């Protein structure tokens, strides 16, 4: 595998991207109503 990464690392990378996508809506002062409505 590339860069010495195993399958578990690729799974982690995908999950990291997904989690970051969700966090981008909730962290850092985004209006709470967005979070409230979104979930």
């Amino acid at each position: 595998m590339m860069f010495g990464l195993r399958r578990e690392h690729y799974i982690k990378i995908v999950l990291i991207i997904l989690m970051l996508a969700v966090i981008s809506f909730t962290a850092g002062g985004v209006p709470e109503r967005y979070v409230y409505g979104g979930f």
Partner: protein
Amino acid sequence: MAIFVEMTFVVVVAIAYVLVQVPVSVPRTTWFGAINFCALAALFGWHAAVVIAAIALSYWLVLYVLTKVENTRKLSTLVYVLAFVSVGLLFVGHKMLLEPGNDFASWAPFKIVGIISQQWPAAQVFSLLQLVAFSYVCLRLIDAIRAVGAGERLLDPVSLAGFLVPFFMTPSGPINEYEKHLEMDKTEPATPSAAHFVDSIWLITCGYFLKFAVAQSFGLFVHGIGGTWPVATFWDSAAFLAYVFLEFCGYSLIALGVGNLLSVPTPVNFNHPYLATSFADFWTRWHMSLGNFVKRTFYFPVRVWFTRRLKPARHEVMKVHTINAIALIVPFAFVGLWHRFTWIFLLWGFAVGIAVAAETIIKDHLGKKGLFSLPVWVARPLVSIYSVGLVVLILQIALKDFAK
């Protein structure tokens, strides 16, 4: 707590990650100490960094004296006790400024410390120290005094500052251990690799996700926008415990991931507390770094002190149980007061300590009679429900104050 959402934090971590890899001729603890000092200055301003450096230098001098007088028993005991007392006074001063209307504010010694802490320059110093969660720094100071007093090597002042206030542990711990920090000098930093990087970023992202997506949403689900946490029922306590778990576990994972990235020893703070096998076991899985701290600082010394004094024989069961109960209640009472200077928190600490002690005694007696012989697959879930249930029940005592 705000530094985790600042872009500066991400930049500082990235720069620190590169810098820790630079081969230098000084010990790793010193190199990290220097990087950490710059990180603190970037995150909290140079005033805060200077105050932290001054505290580290002062206590380095105290510890240096302690190492020099270790052969003179009376003198070393005096320095040892004075060092602990000074940390206690700093802690009280910090608390008096942080919680001015606390339940002990009217007591003469606390009042005097409170008045001093509100004067210039103490007030300015304490307000800067609040930025780096000084309650945690005090625990690390106690740990350093304990370890050096027990004969561990004394770090240099720069390394000591790196141990006392690691920039990524400032929002909410964990409480790192002095001996573990010393081990940095015996090992090389993890070789930079894509796998190590992904593993560390994974921990950090899981932490951010738990805190800023799961815990935040759960909080909003329970109390709505701008609402306060309901505190009336058992289920309010259960929901609050779950919320604190998600949030605190999130913070701890961020710190763990950054520690892993920078190859700085960072303790794990949570180990599946909801799978606890007893009420006592819950507290070995919840906020583990604080649990381990009180174990080595209070539980073992208190137990050894009373055992030496009372010299219980094997058949003197009551004596053994009493010693064990005191050794368990003292650390939990301390934990209660450490959280907040109120009678309610002290009562909560006592209640947890008494429950742990009672459970230990009951288990000891029932275990001998072989009453716990249910199949594991039945016993484990039941025991976990009982353990967490009891935690929630006792949490009711201080829920109103915890949820503020």
